[in-house]
């Protein structure tokens, strides 16, 4: 090889290297949590790789950031240090916190085209309730859920109940629960009728009970709560009665994380948990199980839950545009369907349910559509300004009542006073 050839080769190498680096000029950081069982990180990394293949000029750097709580801490700490992620999946209820700290972009300031407007309208309205405030859209529904009930059909059969029928009302739930609670000779319980978890974020499961009793916990502006509403007190009394009066549920605090395991182990015949656990239950339950909408009382219903996609303020237009493109990519009907099938989260838009993959999945596994059908009666998850503090006031009251240290009315009155005090700063 002579000198000239060598030089040319070197030059072309340099050019191609430069060309490559120019093509992948925009690198965006993507924070995401894992809140349910399954190989979530592998799926997310796969989406990021697929996206870069379709958009060679954008590189996604997915960063697994732990639980929802950890993810919010990491995203906010990074943002306060001037190093915000470009895009992150955080709880839909973190919206007010992120707005108050001036950390996120309203989506419609980035997504202005007509196609974009249609895109924002393509999601289930129930999911948008926790995504919009003050006339702006702040989050894009991604891994959203509702609470559903799972029941062990074998246990139902053994108790002489119809294995294909879940309890439809509170009374029926208590009645079934009594038949399903089994004790050994010494009187110790070997199988409970029901478990509604109460650790960590009991307010979410409790909100299903308040909804069914016809109460709404917070206003849409996130400036007022109704913890001391008599209907809320009634719902809490019922929650406590399940273990303290009817004896169909274990006493004390029921751990969120071990509830599915208790179900697999046959320690409880019915559980309430997120639809996000559907694939987990399907993989691990060694018995026939059913999934149904939650029982009704005055009405049916469940709060929505789960995470939205947020675009952070970084001051970099190219990155914000890339982040928007990625958000759009993650929420196409096909990918919403794929993500729903892989995890059990509710595919966030009606047209996702019309895709071939989803139709086939629902046909073979009708339980997958339960959470979607429940959306008709779903309400926004409790979310206010200074959200963590306001919900903690309720969480403390719930745990105090469930552990028998306080009674429902005074506990909720105190929580209401505390929440009102905190929220007084946000009234205009």
């Amino acid at each position: 090889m002579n000198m000239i050839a060598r030089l040319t080769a070197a030059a072309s190498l340099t050019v191609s290297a430069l060309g490559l680096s120019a093509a992948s000029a925009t690198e965006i950081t993507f924070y995401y949590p894992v809140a349910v069982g399954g190989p979530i990180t592998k799926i997310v990394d796969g989406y990021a790789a697929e996206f870069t293949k379709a958009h060679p000029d954008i590189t996604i750097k997915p960063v697994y950031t732990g639980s929802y709580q950890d993810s919010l801490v990491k995203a906010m700490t990074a943002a306060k240090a001037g190093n915000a992620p470009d895009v992150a999946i955080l709880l839909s209820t973190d919206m007010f916190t992120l707005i108050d700290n001036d950390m996120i972009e309203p989506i419609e300031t980035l997504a202005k085209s007509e196609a974009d407007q249609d895109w924002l309208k393509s999601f289930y309205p129930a999911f948008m309730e926790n995504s919009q405030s003050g006339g702006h859209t702040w989050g894009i529904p991604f891994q959203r859920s509702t609470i559903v009930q799972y029941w062990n059909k074998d246990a139902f059969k053994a108790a002489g109940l119809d294995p294909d029928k879940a309890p439809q009302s509170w009374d029926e739930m208590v009645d079934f629960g009594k038949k399903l609670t089994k004790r050994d000779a010494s009187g110790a319980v070997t199988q409970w009728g029901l478990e509604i978890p109460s650790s960590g974020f009991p307010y979410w499961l409790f909100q299903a009970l308040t909804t069914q009793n016809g109460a709404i916990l917070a206003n849409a502006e996130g400036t007022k709560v109704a913890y001391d509403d008599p209907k809320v007190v009634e719902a809490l009394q019922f929650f406590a009665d399940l273990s303290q009066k009817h004896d169909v549920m274990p006493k004390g605090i029921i751990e969120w994380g071990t509830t599915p395991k208790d179900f697999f182990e046959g320690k409880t015949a019915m559980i309430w948990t997120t639809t996000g656990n559907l694939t987990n239950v399907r993989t691990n339950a060694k018995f026939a199980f059913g999934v149904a909408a939650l029982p009704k009382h005055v009405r049916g219903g469940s709060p929505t839950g789960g995470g939205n996609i947020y675009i952070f303020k970084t001051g970099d237009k190219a990155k914000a545009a890339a982040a928007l493109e990625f958000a759009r990519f993650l929420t196409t009907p096909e990918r919403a369907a794929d993500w729903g099938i892989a995890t059990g989260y509710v595919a966030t838009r009606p047209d996702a349910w019309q895709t071939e993959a989803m139709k086939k999945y629902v046909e073979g596994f009708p339980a997958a559509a339960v959470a979607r059908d429940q959306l008709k009666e779903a309400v926004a998850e409790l979310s206010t300004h200074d959200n963590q503090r306001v919900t903690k006031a309720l969480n403390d009251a719930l745990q105090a009542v469930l552990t028998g240290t306080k009674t429902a009315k005074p506990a909720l009155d105190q929580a209401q006073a505390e929440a009102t005090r905190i929220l007084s700063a946000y009234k205009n």
Partner: protein
Amino acid sequence: MSTITRRHPLNIHIQGWLLALPAIVLLLAFTHLPGIATIIDSFYATPVGKRPAAFVGLAQYQTLLADPIAWLALRNNLLMALITVPLSIGLALAMALWVAGKIRGRAALRLAFFTPTILPMVAAANIWIFFYTPDYGLLNQIIRVLGFSSHNWLGDPATALPALMAVTVWKEAGFFMVFYLAALQQVPPVLYEAARMENAGRWKVFRRITWPLVMPTTLFVAVNALINAFRVVDQVIAMTGGGPNNATTLLLFYIYQVGFSFWDTGYAAALSAVLLALLGLISLLQFRLMGRNVHYR
């Protein structure tokens, strides 16, 4: 060496400062400056969004005095200290006395006692979560065999804090045992020989010889255990999240919650300042007592 110092009399000072410099820089950057910044921050309101922090004087401390959860956290922390410190010291000394003697499998036994110390706290906490799980957890399986009914250890406010204390004692005793092992080797064997000639009983030997002679170690360990008791946070995050109804909320966990869940950094700074003052007080006590040369009479 001496010729060098004579030729450059100033040099020795510079050398000394240079040698201390890395430690000084690290301590300043990661301990003293953040400490001072925290105290300054505690006199300001929490900045929200673009609104800068306003000077509020002692308002954060007034909030603290009126905050029932802060008081509960302090109470829980004092209980944690008063119960775990003597327990882990007693257990550590007992284990040290046992494995100091010439017994079979001594090395294996020492290792077994020391294992909890080398496990990361979060891993240990997860093992204990399994022990405490209602119905099929290890502890409940054992008490059910013994004829008692299953108990929800972490889900009952009466037992949640003691359950965390057990983990703390289990984790710390092995570490303190190592100090006692070293201390026991320092006790002159002639004293034991003399005691044997006098026909002293085992308890008397312990009370009159061993206990007074390991006193400096006991004091050192006690102060460290006390400080550790106020720094407990891992097992709370991993096992209970402060619940049920704040029954296991300790000071450091509460600071984390106020600072990083509520983002009320001004109030978190005030809480930190109080914790700092508390720990400073304990350290002061340590130096006072150490200086007075605690030894046998």
